[in-house]
């Protein structure tokens, strides 16, 4: 019930943001749609993932809308077996990153509102055609970001006592429990069979399995963040990571996308675009960061060590999104004041932390991520000493690149309404 309430509130917020993006002032700093979407949502998302778990998927307003629509239209098909890869989601993730830069989404309330509408349309299209959570598992780019980042979260849904599961013959965690009325009726819609579930990949924190288990043997637990990245066990609904090149690509695109997204805000990216043209410049950057480098990494290093890149990638996302959240946390107050007709001036000094104060936090996130990647890289199995050394050097190089990008003065150039 708490989850339903959270979903309803998030839907209300999404409706308001779409409305304000369309009808409100078309200046990004004066519009709550651009502000909440690009500053507060992204910042809070990564912090909640760091300190808790995948709670943003838990309260997803798109799933709430889909569940309402499924009361009237029932899907008839299963997501085809040959489509059971992350490629569509990776393509959408890259498309969102590209559109963000090419269309200056951050500067346009209307475009941001349209972007917010898109996943609602997509989930209705996919999940009213295909059963279970096909959209969440195979299509949603936000979900993939959350799945990958939540491997570094301190919380996980898992079984309490594996022996209880060995005696179970009814598998309610997967099939659902007909005795339940609200939660637990469906079971895991992402095909995560709890006794074989490893970590947070593909887990939306819907707690269906927790509610469905007749033995109360599934619970939210704390764990060591990132440890799951070393597991070579076959994972329920996923298989072995080393046999999922799509998932490894997703992890590399997640990490290199973090660097690219930060690089898009500083002078070198604009200088390249000034030299070769805006669109060709973006194509070159995206080609290098999201295709050439991931391809090189996959060719040069054993697959078992690839997931250990994630702490560094997550550290860069945290540094970037944390910067915007911490420096602009209360910039929404003057906008709300103007909306409700309050004359009082809100002091500029109270709107957020200074860049100087935030800089150590940014560096700390990147160094923490680097440390995580180095430690996990050292612990990964089946990697020769030479490859391991090469991996360490790669991690240090990428962290150095991230620190260099973060040290450059921010420079946002885009279409202003």
């Amino acid at each position, binding site marked *: 019930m708490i989850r339903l309430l959270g979903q309803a509130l998030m839907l*209300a917020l999404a409706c308001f943001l779409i409305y304000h993006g369309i009808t409100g002032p078309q200046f990004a700093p004066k519009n709550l749609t651009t502000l909440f979407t690009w500053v507060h949502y992204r910042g809070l998302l990564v912090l909640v993932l760091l300190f808790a778990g995948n709670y943003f998927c838990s309260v997803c307003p798109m799933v709430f809308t889909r569940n309402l629509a499924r009361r009237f239209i029932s899907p008839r098909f299963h997501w085809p077996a040959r489509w059971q890869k992350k490629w569509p989601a990776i393509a959408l993730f890259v498309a969102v990153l590209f559109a963000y830069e090419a269309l200056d989404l951050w500067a346009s309330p209307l475009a941001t509102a349209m972007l917010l509408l898109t996943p609602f349309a997509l989930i209705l299209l996919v999940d009213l055609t295909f059963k279970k959570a096909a959209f969440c598992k195979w299509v949603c780019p936000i979900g993939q970001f959350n799945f990958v980042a939540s491997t570094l979260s301190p919380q996980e849904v898992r079984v309490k006592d594996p022996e209880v599961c060995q005696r179970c013959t009814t598998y309610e965690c997967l099939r659902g429990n007909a005795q339940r009325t609200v939660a637990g009726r469906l079971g895991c819609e992402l095909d995560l069979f709890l006794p074989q579930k490893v970590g947070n990949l593909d887990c939306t924190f819907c707690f269906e399995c927790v509610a469905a288990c007749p033995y109360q043997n599934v619970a939210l637990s704390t764990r060591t963040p990132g440890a799951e990245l070393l597991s070579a066990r076959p994972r329920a609904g996923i298989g072995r990571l080393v046999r999922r090149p799509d998932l490894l690509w997703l992890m590399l695109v997640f990490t290199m996308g973090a660097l690219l997204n930060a690089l898009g*805000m500083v002078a070198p990216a604009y200088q390249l675009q000034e030299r070769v043209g805006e669109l060709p410049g973006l194509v070159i950057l995206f080609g290098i960061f999201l295709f050439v480098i991931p391809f090189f990494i996959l060719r040069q290093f054993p697959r078992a060590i690839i997931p250990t890149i994630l702490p560094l990638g997550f550290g860069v996302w945290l540094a970037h999104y944390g910067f915007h959240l911490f420096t602009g946390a209360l910039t929404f107050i003057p906008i709300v004041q103007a909306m409700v007709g309050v004359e009082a001036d809100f002091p*500029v000094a109270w709107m957020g932390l200074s860049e100087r104060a935030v800089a150590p936090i940014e560096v700390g996130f990147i160094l923490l991520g680097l440390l995580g990647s180095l430690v996990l890289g050292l612990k990964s199995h089946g990697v020769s000493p030479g490859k391991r050394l090469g991996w360490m050097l790669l991690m240090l190089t990428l962290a150095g690149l991230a620190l260099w990008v973060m040290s450059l003065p921010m420079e946002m150039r885009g279409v202003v309404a």
Partner: protein
Amino acid sequence: MRRSLTLIPLLVLALLSCTPKEEGKAEIRVAWVSEPTPPALAPTLFRITLTDAQGVPVEVPTIALEANMAHPGMVPVLAEATSVGNGQYEARLTPTMAGSWIMFLKIPLPSGTVAKEFTFEVNR
């Protein structure tokens, strides 16, 4: 309970959809130049000229300026442009970073405050 949950989005939307404050309707034309041109990451003098629809200079004591980065969530730079006569106003402010900026002006006319804006690019 589920049905009432579905009403929450509509209720919140209704509560939040406040009407923006009515601003003055007078037609004001804004022209501006800066020193240096284009504005740079240094103290920059903005000379702003206000005229009405007939081209007659508009005289007010001061104009409130708020310079914002185009990116949301950046702390604005505030300044006050003071009249130097003949509908011209001057203010000095220092942009905090290079990139695309929007200058918001609040012009206190006797008939009500008029909001205007112009955009500018700050060089490295």
